[in-house]
């Protein structure tokens, strides 16, 4: 019986890394592969009422950790990886009013920031990202080009994108393409 802890392979391990596109410095885009910590998909049981506060109980308390994407549906994210047991341990915190599906490996977080970030993302999504309509903390599950992803504003000039692992590299490449006119620094190394 092998008891060597298996090696974790990040989804974007082999993705393009480096600087691409225009040499400009002013509005450069930064693309970052964020830590594959925990991603919990929380699903409310039928008729469970308002769960906003309950959901907070399973989050690590950092800003923007809880990301609603539809009625009774949230992603709770954080940098720390959680074991199956740790996730199982969180279920009782929900008082039986919601279930948790571990998506820590199924979804990958990508950070994107820069002065032109709204313009870049508008090449993919139809969601109006104007900061008055889409303030910090807001999330939207949407299509970016042909790929579905959860977009969250984390700052005035920064967003996080949560995407299915299988599509992560494809989306990564597209985000680079979309950023070329401003210049982009893509960092896969955490």
């Amino acid at each position, binding site marked *: 019986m092998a008891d060597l802890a298996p090696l974790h392979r990040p989804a974007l391990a082999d993705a393009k890394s480096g600087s691409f596109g225009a040499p400009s410095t002013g509005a450069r885009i930064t693309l970052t592969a964020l830590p594959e910590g925990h991603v919990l998909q929380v699903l409310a049981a039928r008729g469970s009422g308002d769960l906003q506060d309950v959901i907070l109980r399973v989050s690590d308390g950092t800003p923007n950790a809880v990301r609603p*994407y*539809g*009625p009774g*549906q949230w992603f709770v994210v954080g940098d720390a990886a959680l074991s199956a047991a740790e996730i199982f341990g969180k279920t009782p915190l929900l008082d039986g009013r919601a279930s948790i599906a571990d998506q820590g490996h199924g979804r990958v977080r990508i950070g994107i920031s820069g002065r032109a970030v709204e313009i870049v993302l508008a090449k993919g999504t*139809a*969601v109006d990202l104007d900061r008055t309509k889409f303030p910090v903390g807001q999330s*939207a*599950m*949407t*299509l970016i080009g042909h790929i*579905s992803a959860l977009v969250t504003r984390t700052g005035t000039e920064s967003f996080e994108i949560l995407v299915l692992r299988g599509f992560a590299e494809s989306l990564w490449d597209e985000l680079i393409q979309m950023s070329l006119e401003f210049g982009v620094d893509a960092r896969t190394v955490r």
Partner: protein
Amino acid sequence: MASLIACPHCGPRPKEEFTIRGDAGIVRPAPDAGEDAWHAYVYLRDNPRGRHKEHWHHTSGCRRWLVVERDTMSHAIHAVSDASTEGATA
């Protein structure tokens, strides 16, 4: 139509984010409703010129099934609601 559908959960979104199933004005019959009722449910359609209720799935968004009431002549959208709240009256 459908350049934008105002999802009641997500706001206006483009057609590409949705999967359309079709007529939401028909009700699934009881299991023992008989051949005619089932044939009508599975195969017959009103196909109106004018207002029409349809099931649209916000596949690339909140993944909720919606009932979209739409005009088939003008493509104007009159109402969008969550299919579960539309309930059996759909």
